[in-house]
């Protein structure tokens, strides 16, 4: 019997598809993004990037560049007060020593990837800054490099860092693997390979910095993390309170603006010159040097009973960190924890390693490790279904996690898991089957489910804060340090506030993402922002409401809990009402604050030893199920996605229109990953540094994605919401692979599923002698 949980609809503003307040400026062309800002006397900054992936810098000569007319400053590693950037977990407890990683702000002697920053320039014009870069003479001695994580782990491999090429390893073990496989009626094996992907935000890395009053280095930058102000301060050798980061509305992040981007270069250039400096990267610079999504090589061995019940799974994961650690250890952790998928598997072993190479560094990108493994576990489920002769949906339902189940890592699932309902709703949304439109075309359908954590590791003691206040006219101001990447982060907070305080949306103004002036709310990453700042705003608004109602109770001569707030007034049960401004005047007279600063602390826990399976790792998980109908042209190998439905339990949809937008947008990014986007690195050299070679999906490449919203009310976020930023990017590649197998009988295991690759696989399966398909050649 499936447990069905439904959310009550008792809200006025929450749950409505209200138009986002930021959309008006954006559609009018009035939003000033980071690179649109301008300051009097502003210089233009640029970065010199290494052309080699592995080299020694023998000599840098900057004097010719420095002497050029219009060049204000040229900086190399020796000019940087503290030339190390620590990748830590901003704003948190700083107790996660093993996960720290470091890199040089500017290269110091050794080059480890193509695109590594070597020098900085600031000049009167952008053209002059670029001329100056060309005038910097750098003598490189190319060195042998290593470009494959498997090769990097061999003892004789060139070392990317002195401490060796194994960056991190996670092991998870639960139950008794050998006993599990001994029970199995069928065992299926598969090897899967994913590829490098770029965030592809349309707004490149950009910002403007200046030294403000009191010597505060102020940086207005496109970022997901304003709390990098601390990192910039450390590099400049300044106290933390002398650096301020402001994030205007961001032109897309997707994880690519989670690590430090240009803010540290801007900080250095403005501090050295004491003049405002702008830096805007070209698309080529961005595609060359921005951290990428990790390629994963995944080996799965899955044991199941004839009933389809999973009994054992052995998983080996190897990912490519590129040249610097960034978030790689954490990404591998997320992959490990979710590697067995949203299923009950009693006996599991996961061995995940991440290796340094001389490739472009990899780090956060939407899905953060938990998306790559979906191709592994969801392909395996279909293989199990085929082996036991059952419907793949049925096998998923049989094994789906339920409340009370325990993950291999030891975490008990405390909240509702709607997988069977999601699966059914996604499948139904496909409607009637499409008939093939030509003899060479095959049509097929597939499904894929996933789980994605939201919020941070529980031992990072995550918190977020918000300030809300009434103005004397009854309008409301919110201040919170939330960077808004375009997903409606700020607008959702206005909706929650409007709901609780009973004021119309248009009476709420929000100030976001200023590390000096807004209470800190942490990073807009890891699908945490609605969960964390949503809860912070909810707590704050409720406290403010209580403060105001207690005064209103005196004015109205009624009990505070008998009062309601709506349409800008406070009302009694009998219908007597007082407008907010009058109550606020009473607050002023009585000395009762009309503001509140609130903090939300996520439930936290102790550091978990993954290998011992000792408990809770993440606050909660989000679950989804996708269904795809594809056509495969057997002559060209071209896959076209005809229909696509994506169902997610979002707990509660604060703004259903924004939720649909996240589902559609993330799914299309997932389809781009599945079908066409690929950063091609040849011996560490990037061959895809333009949008004409790095292909993000256009409108003709994808179908209309049908979003299916399920609201169980079971999330850890405000009013029962779950995060939705990342979850829908997980299933597309697996859903497409499963649909292609349904259409053609071939199993695609290496992303992206380009026509070339599909045609090769089809050639193997339709060979004259009717042999089994041969494994794909993973080399290029």
């Amino acid at each position, binding site marked *: 019997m499936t447990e069905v949980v439904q959310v009550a609809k008792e809200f006025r503003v929450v749950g409505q598809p209200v138009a986002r307040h930021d959309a008006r400026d954006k559609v*009018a062309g009035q939003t000033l993004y980071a690179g649109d800002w301008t300051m009097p006397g502003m210089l233009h900054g640029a970065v010199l990037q290494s052309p080699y992936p592995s080299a020694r810098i023998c000599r840098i000569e900057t004097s010719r560049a420095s002497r050029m007319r219009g060049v204000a400053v040229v900086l190399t590693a020796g000019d940087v007060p503290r030339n190390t950037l620590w990748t830590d977990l901003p704003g948190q407890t700083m107790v996660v020593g093993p996960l720290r990683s470091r890199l040089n702000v500017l290269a110091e002697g050794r080059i480890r990837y193509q695109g590594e920053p070597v020098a900085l320039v600031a000049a009167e014009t952008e053209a002059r800054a670029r001329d100056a870069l060309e005038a910097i003479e750098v003598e490189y001695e190319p060195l042998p490099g290593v470009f494959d994580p498997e090769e990097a782990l061999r003892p004789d491999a060139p070392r990317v860092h002195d401490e060796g090429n194994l960056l991190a390893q996670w092991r998870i073990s639960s139950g008794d693997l050998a006993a599990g496989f001994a029970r199995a009626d069928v065992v299926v094996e598969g090897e899967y390979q994913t590829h490098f992907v770029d965030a592809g*935000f349309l707004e490149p890395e950009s910002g403007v910095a200046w030294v403000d009053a009191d010597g505060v280095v102020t940086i207005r930058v496109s970022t997901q993390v304003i709390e990098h102000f601390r990192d910039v301060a450390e590099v400049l050798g300044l106290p933390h309170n002398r650096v301020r980061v402001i994030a205007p509305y961001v032109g*897309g992040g997707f994880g690519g603006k989670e690590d430090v981007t240009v803010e540290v270069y801007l900080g250095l250039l403005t501090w050295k010159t004491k003049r405002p400096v702008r830096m805007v990267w070209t698309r080529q610079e961005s595609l060359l040097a921005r951290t990428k999504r990790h390629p994963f090589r995944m080996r799965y061995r899955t044991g199941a009973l004839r009933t389809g019940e999973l009994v054992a799974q052995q998983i080996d994961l190897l990912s490519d960190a590129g040249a610097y650690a960034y978030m790689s250890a954490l990404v591998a952790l997320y992959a490990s924890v979710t590697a067995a998928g949203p299923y009950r598997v009693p006996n599991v072993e996961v061995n995940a390693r991440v290796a340094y190479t001389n490739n472009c560094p990899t780090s956060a990108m939407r899905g953060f490790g938990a998306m790559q493994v979906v191709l592994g576990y969801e392909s395996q489920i279909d293989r199990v279904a085929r082996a036991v002769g059952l419907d793949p949906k049925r096998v998923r339902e049989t094994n789906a996690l339920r409340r009370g189940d325990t993950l291999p890592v030891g975490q008990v699932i405390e909240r509702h898991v709607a997988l069977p309902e999601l699966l059914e709703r996604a499948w139904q949304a496909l409607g009637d089957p499409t008939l093939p439109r030509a003899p060479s075309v095959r049509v097929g359908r597939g499904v894929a489910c996933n789980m994605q954590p939201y919020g941070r590791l529980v031992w990072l003691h995550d918190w977020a804060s918000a300030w809300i206040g009434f103005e004397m006219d009854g309008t409301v101001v919110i201040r919170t340090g939330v960077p808004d990447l375009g*997903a409606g982060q700020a607008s959702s907070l206005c909706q929650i506030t409007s709901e609780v305080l009973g004021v119309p949306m248009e009476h709420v103004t929000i100030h976001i993402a200023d590390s000096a002036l807004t209470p800190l709310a942490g990073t807009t990453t890891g699908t945490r922002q609605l969960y964390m700042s949503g809860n912070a705003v909810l707590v704050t608004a409720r406290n403010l409401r209580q403060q105001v109602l207690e005064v209103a109770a005196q004015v109205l001569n009624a009990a505070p809990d008998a009062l309601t707030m709506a349409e800008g007034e406070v009302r009694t049960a009998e219908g007597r009402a007082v407008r907010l401004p009058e109550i606020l005047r009473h607050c002023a007279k009585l000395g009762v604050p009309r503001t509140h600063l609130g903090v939300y602390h996520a439930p936290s826990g102790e550091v978990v030893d993954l290998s011992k399976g000792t408990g809770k790792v993440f606050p909660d998980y989000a679950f989804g199920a996708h269904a795809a109908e594809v056509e495969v042209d057997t002559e060209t190998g071209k896959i076209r996605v005809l229909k696509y439905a994506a169902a997610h339990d979002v707990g509660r949809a604060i703004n259903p229109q924004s939720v649909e937008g996240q589902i559609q*947008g993330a799914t299309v990014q997932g389809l781009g990953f599945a079908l066409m986007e690929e950063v091609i690195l040849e011996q560490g050299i990037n061959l895809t540094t333009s*949008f004409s070679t790095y292909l993000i999906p256009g409108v003709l490449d994808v179908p209309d994605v049908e979003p299916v919203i399920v609201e169980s009310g079971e999330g850890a976020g405000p009013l029962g919401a779950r995060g939705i930023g990342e979850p829908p990017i997980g299933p597309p590649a697996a859903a497409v692979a499963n649909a292609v197998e349904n259409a053609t009988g071939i199993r695609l295991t290496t992303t992206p599923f380009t026509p070339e690759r599909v045609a090769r696989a089809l050639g193997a399966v339709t060979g004259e002698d009717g042999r089994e398909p041969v494994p794909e050649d993973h080399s290029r």
Partner: protein
Amino acid sequence: MKIEFIVNGQPREFDVAASETLLKVLREAGCWEVKEGCGEGVCGSCTVLFDDQPVSSCLVLAPLARGHSVITVRGLQENGGSLHPLQEALIRHGAVQCGFCTPGIVLTAFAFVERTPDVDREAIREALAGNLCRCTGYAKIVDAIEAYVKGVYG
């Protein structure tokens, strides 16, 4: 060289180098609503209307604009600053997320509905083929344009 062309209905004079793009000249003249996403004519973020035709301004050399009319997204606002109903439709349908592609999308869509108002979804998609959006997955953009056309002409 000094050249003159019309920006959003106003004749303006510019001092440009022969190799400068229209995109760069417009931005330096304060038209920040024209965005640079790729610099090579692929993404459509820098779309402007050049004599009412949508073009990628990163591919137009500025001197070629001499004597022509250029319209940016700000030029669509009606007297009194109110938005064009097509822009309202994009807001209402949730077709705007990060917004960086939006000025280009608005102008491409505007030129399309002015030229070919009798449309279906596939025709709308064809028209938008030169404008990349990384956030929305396109469905709500197509929804908005479809609803606008139906509302005006349906």
